[in-house]
């Protein structure tokens, strides 16, 4: 299935782009993250396990167990620092 992936802040800078379309069989956010890490750099460093990465599906904060669906918008970003 096709997923629209977006990156923000330090993760966007590390990956070098604000987003990309990803063709994947990953069923969860965790699986998608692992798939992106497996590509190697720059994704591996930006999304590395042990790093604090927050995720959203269709613009709602979600945990890694959340299920993906065709056409979803997934975002990866660092902990938020607004306010």
């Amino acid at each position, binding site marked *: 299935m096709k997923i629209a992936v977006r990156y923000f802040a330090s993760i966007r800078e590390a990956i070098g782009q604000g987003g990309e379309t990803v063709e994947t069989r990953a069923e969860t956010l965790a699986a998608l993250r692992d798939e992106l890490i497996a590509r190697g750099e720059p994704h591996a460093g930006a999304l590395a396990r042990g790093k604090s990465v927050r995720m959203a599906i269709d613009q*709602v904060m979600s945990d890694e167990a959340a299920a993906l669906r065709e056409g979803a918008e997934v975002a990866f*970003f660092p902990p938020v620092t*607004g306010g």
Partner: protein
Amino acid sequence: MARVAIQHEDFDLSNEIAELRRHDKRVGAVCSFVGTVRGREEGTHGPPVLSMELEHYPGMTEKAIEAMIDEALHRFDIFGVRIIHRVGLLAPGDQIVLVAVTSAHRGQSYQACEFLMDYLKTQAPFWKKERTPQGEQWVDARVSDDAAAARWGIPGGNG
């Protein structure tokens, strides 16, 4: 008036409060919080902050804050809420964020204002980048913000 505004422009506290109170004779209390850009991080040894750039996630930001306001209206006996968050390039002393809440008596608007700020600090997709004489750096999330949010039963996720 829209409850949420994400904007580059500055805002005027008096105008926002006047608008929030207008035509609502039930209001007996208005509580507001304004956050500004610090010229230096806490502790005077840090380098001066020359400017601050705020990035956000258009679409999700508005959605997240609207959900926070719905939650506040559910939890507290309040009438109206106005939240403004600025994005883009800001200078020390500039206003960044406004949260204003109206209620009949002060207790509920005080609490709702604090609740909304704690929620926003940990759940709204904004990121700050500081420019100092040593270069640019992303501001780290604070564990203390998670602790503040936890008081309300809000998962932090920033630690």
